[in-house]
């Protein structure tokens, strides 16, 4: 399965699974990134890391190392 990092900038995708460490799961979930949620990578920091994903109209910043654990399916 693909992860967030394999998406092109602006490409819409659906979250299939989150395989990060437990406390990161909780954090990401409380920010609205959960299974079956649609999101897209909307910004990359000028220095290449972190990235920002857009979910439900909000933009959430994640480091690439964490984004790797978010498995997605392009829609």
């Amino acid at each position, binding site marked *: 399965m693909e992860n967030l990092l394999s998406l092109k900038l602006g490409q819409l995708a659906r979250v299939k699974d*989150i395989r*990060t460490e*437990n*406390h*990161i*799961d*909780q*954090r*990401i*979930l*409380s*920010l*609205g990134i*959960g*299974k079956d949620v649609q999101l897209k990578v909307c*910004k990359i*920091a*000028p*220095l*290449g*890391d*972190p990235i*920002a994903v*857009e*979910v*439900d*109209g*909000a*933009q*959430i*910043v*994640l*480091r690439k190392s*964490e984004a790797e654990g978010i498995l997605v399916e392009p829609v």
Partner: protein
Amino acid sequence: MKTATMQAPSRTIRIALIGNPNTGKSTIFNNLTGLRQKTGNYPGVTVSRKIGTMKIGDVSAELIDLPGAYSLSAHSPDERVVIDVLNGRFKEIGKPNYVLFVADAANLRRNLFLASQVATLKIPMVLILNQWDAVAPSGQQIDLNLLKGRLNIPVIPAIGTKDKGSTEIKKAVESLMEEPKFLPEIRWPESMHLALDHLNASLAIEDKDFLSDSETHRLLFDTHSAEIQRLKVSPEEATKEVSTARGFLRKDGMNPLVAEAMLHYRHIDGLIGGVVLKDAKLAHGATESIDRLLLHRGWGLAAFIAMMYVVFQAVYSWAGPVMDVIEMGKVWTQNMTGPALDGTPMLQSLILDGVLEGVGAFLVFLPQILILFAFISFLEDSGYMARAAFIMDKLFSWCGLNGKSFVPLLSSYACAIPGIMATRTIEDPKSRLATIFVSPFMSCSARLPVYILCIGAFIEPVYGPWWAGFTLFMMHFVGLAIAVPTAWVVTRFILKTKSQPFVMELPKYRTPRLKDVGFRMWEAGWEFVKKAGTIIFFITIIIWATLYFPRTDDQSDELLATFVAEKVAQKIRSEAEIMSALENPDSELSHELNLLLGSNQINQSYMGRLGKVVQPIFAPAGFDWRISIGVLASYPAREVIISTLGIIYSLGGDVDEEAGSLRDALKNSEWQEGELKGMPIYTVPVVIGLMVFFALCSQCGATTSIIIKEAGLKWAVWSFVYMTTLAWLGAVLCYQIGTRFF
């Protein structure tokens, strides 16, 4: 009779203001309470506490502004305070009677997650849909009537920055006082009830005062819940029971660690289904266009550096005229009070040379504090501060900090105390400790007086304003240059725990409201002025006393005789001429004699003696005994060096009250003995060394005490030793290398 008309004691209610970060909560708070605010700390923790009062009808209400949080699950001390206040864990605040929940209207689903968690506390709630004007531009429509019907509580659309909604919010609270209304609570599945029942029974938490439902949820769902410390059983036993309880959820096919979010979001989706209509293509407008520039690979970085540069230039140059006015006010007060105290020389000296000189020298820096806080508030309220963290994260992450360290570190440029307090938003304990450790290296506003004085006296007149601004910029950079490798060493070799994630939200850009910027400036300015009235006032008197005593008045006849004899020996004037010139207090000779008497006094004073004892330690940095005294006296607070030097030069008679300033006194001061006799003390290497010393030193009692509170005594001691050593080394290097070039 008076008693007959006396009103019944009016009722006081407590209202908690709660919501996600970046929802404009503080704006709503400012609108509702105006200037009736009190700031302080929560007992035991150093999360800043803001409580304001307001009138609702004839009831007076206390409004508690809670830190912004995404969830009741506490990852940071800030978030911990939210659940503790809601459960009435702080005795002197008490459990809130009502909750005002501030949601970002354009992001309803995510915001309601916390609201749904709060609903389990069964406190009547008002939902405020703030930033209502941003809903349409974001391509959404909210069916308000449908939402009100579903949620069963008052729902108030508001635009905090335009002060729209305040009246309606107060009315909504009034309606809750007549008839309490609650946000529909989540309905847990059967397995959840089994899990909760198990915890209640095995951990003896049936007694509801002991652990509330919302706290039991934390115990069940969170990885390392602090609630475990409230239990009467041992942590090991509790962990065992929690894991048994989680077993019920697992059997039901749920992952206990993500079950809570899943269930709450399912509940929310049920509540707001069909309420929010979205256009297929999300409109973004201004925020996206601005970000395309400000987060651009090249332009974004350039804009960031330019913005920081403008901040420091502004702090330096804009404050000038206002500082002159304050300086003039000080001199005017001295001239007005001086003659009135002519009969009591000691009191006169205490008031003029001690209090007015010392406190005045400190207060002069108020304009700078205000300008800096105006910028910080502006950057935060506009949404740029989060972008700055986004841009800086990569630079910070390699040395073990993260983008969120940026805000505490930037705040530390104003003052390390709010900066260190702001580290509580960093969930990762490792990044947090490292950020605390390096925060005092950021060039706080208390160093500014030293820089301004040195640059204004020695750099600007010789090298011009461009170099002055550049020097100031570089002084702010020195601490950062030391801080980064320090953080790397700390996170790599001293703290060996695993790093935690960096997750945050990028808010939409908003135009900051002047009123809110004003509140921040007022808050910071008042803190500063309070310091002048307390610690600075106190230290000033002590320093004055150690310079004023013991008196050497009995030696003045002897000195006069020597002085006259010397002048006669020079054969320029006769003794009679000399004596008559000394009759006139404005004559050149009188002035010379006063200087001699004054410096004799300082030389023999307790402080003067101490200064000469410690001066050898600072000799490799080119400091004379007066600078050494300044360094010693400023251990409680850096800015004290200014008032100390002010007193030294003023008592020494070097400061001509008409010309008025310490600046000139420093320029004219020369070595009075030794091989450098007659040479100026303040050469460029000494001045740069002095600034570097103050850039790196740990001269701030308040910072030390806050580090003890936030990180423990061990870290505070380390911080003190490390910084003091670096400061001394820095000053010595500047002097030793510098004197070879200048």
